[in-house]
């Protein structure tokens, strides 16, 4: 199941909905991404207004309605092809968030823990590189778009089939 929403989410309620009445699940893994107080590290260019020691006030998530839902659905389907999951969920927020706020929730449930852990890591790695979201961080010196990270690309590539 996937959801794209401005509203916050409640992990306990999402887990309860996924696992209600099920007794075949042995392992459940959740990943929550949160807005950090200090800005995301950027490339070393003299034009950058924001660096990793800049405190941010807001983080605004822009997305591509329509394509976002398709991309998340594809990513979730791919995870379910690769691992024997009993349940999975991706919830991604958009709009203006503050430090400490929740951004994204991934839940995977399986009979065995290795499948649940691997599928959760896969979902997070792929949505970070394939789902159309863009982060704008705003601090005292102004607002600036977060740059894509090389190590996110590398993390996603380890799941590419050769």
């Amino acid at each position, binding site marked *: 199941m996937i959801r794209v929403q401005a509203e916050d989410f409640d992990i306990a309620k999402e887990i309860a909905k996924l696992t209600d009445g099920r007794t075949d699940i042995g392992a459940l893994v959740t990943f929550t991404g949160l807005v950090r107080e200090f800005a995301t590290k950027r490339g070393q260019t003299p034009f950058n207004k924001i660096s990793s020691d800049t405190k941010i006030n807001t983080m605004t998530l822009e997305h591509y309605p329509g394509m976002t839902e*398709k991309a998340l659905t594809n990513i979730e389907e791919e995870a379910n092809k690769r691992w024997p999951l009993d349940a999975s969920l991706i919830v991604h927020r958009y709009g203006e968030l503050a430090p400490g706020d929740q951004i*994204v929730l991934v839940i995977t449930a399986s009979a065995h823990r290795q499948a649940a852990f691997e599928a959760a890591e896969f979902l997070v790695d792929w949505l970070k590189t394939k789902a*159309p*979201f863009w982060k704008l961080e705003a601090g005292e010196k102004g607002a600036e778009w977060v740059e894509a990270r090389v190590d996110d690309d590398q993390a996603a590539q380890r799941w590419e089939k050769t």
Partner: protein
Amino acid sequence: MKILYFAWIRQRIGKSSDDLALPEDVKNVQHLIDHLKGLSAGYAAAFQDLDAIKVAVNQEQVGFETPITAAQEIAFFPPVTGG
């Protein structure tokens, strides 16, 4: 043709979408970019560094050589940074 812009591409162009009638010789994404760059300084700035630009045709990410003659919706955006 409906064309969407996101993040700093949207900001540089100054709007989030266009609905354009394209010349017949604009047959793929690269042709479209070349066409858009000629429209104004804002478009030229937005498409200055093509390494930093991704494109989706009908909401699927594709390469710049992809034909667009049958496309309903084309979107330009920077590499994604969600999650």
